[in-house]
């Protein structure tokens, strides 16, 4: 198959049919097929090497395949960054059947990669699912796609139908004893379903509420009470490459602790926002935001105010963290997370109170309501930030916000008790009084913004900027 002609109508490197994806220079382990216009068809996929990794896997023992993946140190791409090969090892022995659930419920604000992987290269994902099922003896696979992604559902449905027809999925795959069905399942709009136990609840036909822990991993008790592996779409999309080229070649990219590449979505106030495949560990935030191969700096020559390093749940970073490399371990040590590979850049024109409110509102709306600290706390955080923004804030509101945060995610931040230094000692990963990390995530934007831009909040409170209070007399029940 000839190399695709990449059209750059605007000289920016965007590929017209893969919205947002930028064909920058660098290794392409999971996005290699994106530039082909018909990359989602079986024909194009086969002509460009699809199912080669599966065939390589089928020529080896399942245990061998598992070892290869463990040796590659494939870190989970959903947010927590847990090594997939290790997670796979948590299945209890001799408990059958085991299931695979694919987490395609991408909805963390700022994150845009799994949708591209499903729309642009469904066969790569299907191949990854098959490799995982083969290695671990998983008897059935459920591909959970976010409900709002209509095109991804269509592309995956057709890809599955074609792959069944061609003998890659279903009974006696590639004429071996390996047989597994992949069931395409779709959600219906709920962020919390991205949490793996909530995903399983949803798949069982229930409200998507996280399950009480322990057990911490569904590998012990998962779907229908059976051992279940839950992996993110991007994690599985890496498997065909690893099986085709081997763990050693995979470790040739990225750093020692975080091998391979990752898809990063950089959005907000940059010159060239987009989805980039980037070597982990060796690339820095500065490269990504300012580099000519990547986002080419802040729009209109503006100054950087803050950036979110790994999705809306992540504590914010500022200029002094620009030189950190995209390495989960280092970013964790610096008090935030690489999360889902979502970087949101804010320039100096950004209204921090507004941005903070918007993120908190997201968590308030998406709280499933199971744990009271989160259910009550997030909506109070939202109300308080709203009144500050509207000019009705009270001087005590900032401490009140932190006090509510303390109830959801205990920390030393209430200034009254600990002084302003408390904010600098916010623990990461956050402590939680809730079952899942959604509630604690709502505290991150508040502590981040207050730590750096407290004066902007105070200005809103003391100057009463915002909507004026109506004091006109009421006539006939309507304000005059």
């Amino acid at each position, binding site marked *: 198959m000839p190399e695709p002609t990449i059209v750059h109508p605007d000289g920016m490197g965007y590929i017209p049919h893969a919205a*947002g994806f930028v064909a920058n220079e660098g290794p392409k382990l999971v996005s290699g097929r994106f530039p082909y216009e018909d990359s989602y068809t079986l024909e194009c996929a086969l002509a460009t090497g699809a199912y080669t990794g599966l065939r390589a896997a089928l020529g080896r023992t399942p245990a061998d395949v598992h070892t290869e993946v463990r040796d590659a140190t494939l870190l989970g791409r959903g947010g927590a960054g847990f090594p997939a090969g290790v997670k796979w090892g948590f299945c209890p022995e001799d408990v059958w059947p085991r299931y695979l659930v694919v987490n395609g419920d991408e909805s963390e*604000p700022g994150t845009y990669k799994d949708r591209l992987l499903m729309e642009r290269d469904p066969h790569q994902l299907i191949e990854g699912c098959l490799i995982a099922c083969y290695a671990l*003896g998983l*008897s059935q696979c459920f591909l959970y796609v976010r409900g709002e992604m209509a095109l991804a559902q269509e592309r995956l449905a057709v890809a599955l139908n074609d792959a069944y027809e061609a003998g890659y999925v279903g009974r006696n795959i590639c004429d071996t*004893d390996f047989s597994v069905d992949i069931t395409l399942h779709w959600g219906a709009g709920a962020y919390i379903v991205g949490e793996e136990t909530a995903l399983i609840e949803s798949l069982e036909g229930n409200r998507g509420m996280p399950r009480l822990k322990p057990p911490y991993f569904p590998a012990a008790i998962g779907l*229908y009470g059976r051992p279940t592996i839950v992996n993110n779409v991007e994690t599985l999309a890496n498997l065909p490459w690893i099986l085709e080229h081997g763990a050693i070649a995979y470790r040739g990219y990225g750093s020692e602790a975080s091998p391979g590449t990752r898809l990063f979505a950089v959005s*907000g106030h940059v010159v060239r926002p987009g989805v980039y495949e980037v070597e982990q560990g060796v690339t820095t935030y500065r490269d990504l935001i300012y580099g000519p191969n990547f986002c080419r700096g802040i729009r209109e020559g503006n100054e950087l105010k803050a950036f979110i390093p790994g999705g809306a749940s992540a504590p914010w970073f500022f200029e002094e963290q620009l030189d950190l490399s995209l390495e989960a371990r280092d970013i964790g040590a610096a008090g935030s997370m690489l999360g889902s590979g979502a970087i949101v850049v804010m320039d100096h024109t950004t209204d921090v109170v507004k941005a903070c409110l918007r993120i908190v509102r997201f968590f308030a709306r998406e709280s499933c309501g199971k744990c009271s600290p989160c259910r009550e706390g997030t909506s109070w955080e939202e109300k308080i930030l709203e009144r500050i923004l509207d000019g009705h804030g009270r001087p005590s509101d900032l401490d009140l916000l932190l006090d509510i945060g303390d109830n959801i995610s205990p920390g030393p931040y209430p200034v009254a008790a600990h002084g302003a230094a408390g904010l600098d000692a916010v623990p990461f990963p956050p402590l939680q009084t809730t079952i899942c990390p959604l509630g604690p995530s709502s505290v991150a934007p508040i502590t981040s913004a207050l730590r750096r831009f407290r004066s902007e909040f105070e200005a809103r409170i003391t100057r009463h900027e915002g909507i004026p209070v109506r004091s006109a007399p009421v006539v006939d029940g309507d304000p005059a």
Partner: protein
Amino acid sequence: MSFFTEANARTAAEVIARYPRPRSAVIPLLHLAQEQEGWVTRDAMVEIAELTGATPAEVLGTGSFYEMFRFHPVGRYVVNVCTNISCQLLGGEELLHHVEESLEVHAGGTTADGMFTVEEVECVAACTEAPCFTVNYRYFHRADPDTFDAVVDDLRAGRSPLARGAQGDDGNLPAHGTLGRLRQHIPDDRRAGVVPPEQADQEPVWLRTAPSTTSAADA
């Protein structure tokens, strides 16, 4: 009288057969019901309950947790405008304001002619393409008020607006409720079969019969 049409009843049976337990099909069947009527009716929930071994209340309990299900009629076209952080930074709130003004309806409401329902929604995973909106879950990227007006003009004139930027264009923007127009279909002769959790007797056959040699790549 059954709720599902004959064709949809066949689809429903096929969907249920893909899961070890019918209850898992509740969400897909709610989508199917919404595809048929544009929203989820009481009759639909009663029938889904029968098909999946749940009670109608359990079906409502599950369905009402998820944003996409509507339990009252909505417009033919549901316009979702994202105002979450990436879109907010690039004008998502202003875009929503324009949508509300031009259609003369607040977010959450439906226009008097039943054509459009407007919603302010959370992140739809198009962050690098902000600001964006979707119409019946078809994406319009890097949108501005002019994009939106052109889409509305198209829809009012009976044309498909998809060529204006939404991906997956086949020249037809379906009415609200229809998500994927192409469905999964497992041919009988290729089916591996569902594996219910009760089938706990032994490990899958390929774990015992797989080649015992080591890596072909190592050789």
